[in-house]
């Protein structure tokens, strides 16, 4: 079953603008991860935020986590055409043990127009 739900499903912005994507999940988590997928390629890990963290930065990426609302957001600042891709959140639930089994959302498709 899919735990993470991304919002919006699709987003189109101009180069230089910021892009914000949201993810909601249902059960308690160990961590939440964001991945990017370029068209026709595999997923690439972007950033991981632990359940006891509220905000994390990596370059132009900013991730927030609100465990009380079971939600996370990914902000891409000063977007570039190369940021055009699909973005997925994935959660590692409590009790996943050593398997590292993630549950992925359905993704947000971001188009950045030059």
């Amino acid at each position: 079953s899919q735990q993470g739900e991304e919002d919006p499903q699709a987003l189109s912005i101009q180069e230089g603008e910021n892009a914000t994507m949201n993810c909601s999940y249902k059960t308690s988590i160990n961590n939440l991860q964001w991945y990017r997928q370029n068209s026709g390629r595999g997923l690439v890990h972007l950033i991981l935020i632990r359940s006891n963290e509220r905000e994390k930065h990596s370059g132009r990426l900013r991730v927030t986590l609100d465990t009380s609302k079971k939600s996370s957001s990914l902000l891409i600042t000063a977007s570039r055409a190369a940021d055009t891709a699909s973005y997925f959140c994935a959660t590692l639930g409590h009790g996943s043990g050593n398997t590292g089994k993630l549950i992925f959302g359905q993704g947000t498709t971001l188009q950045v127009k030059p």
Partner: protein
Amino acid sequence: DVKVTQSSRYLVKRTGEKVFLECVQDMDHENMFWYRQDPGLGLRLIYFSYDVKMKEKGDIPEGYSVSREKKERFSLILESASTNQTSMYLCASSLPAAYGSNQPQHFGDGTRLSIL
């Protein structure tokens, strides 16, 4: 960098054929995963393996089996291919949570499989 290699980018097979999808990783990861990705459905876990010869069913194992004879290789098998198995198949690997629970998954580029 971790490299996960899937044997084919594109594959066309016929209904009823036995199909093998191969995945190899070069980072000595214990965990390996097979997903399928379909429009509107996201990524769905088919099977995963946390050690050689160990396997566990994911969310949609019906019609599939797997093999993990060596640590670096994880094979997905479609016993008798059907048209509803036309999809993008993604393989991933990761270290186990015993190395710290915050282990990302590393993906191959996928195999786009068409069953005619």
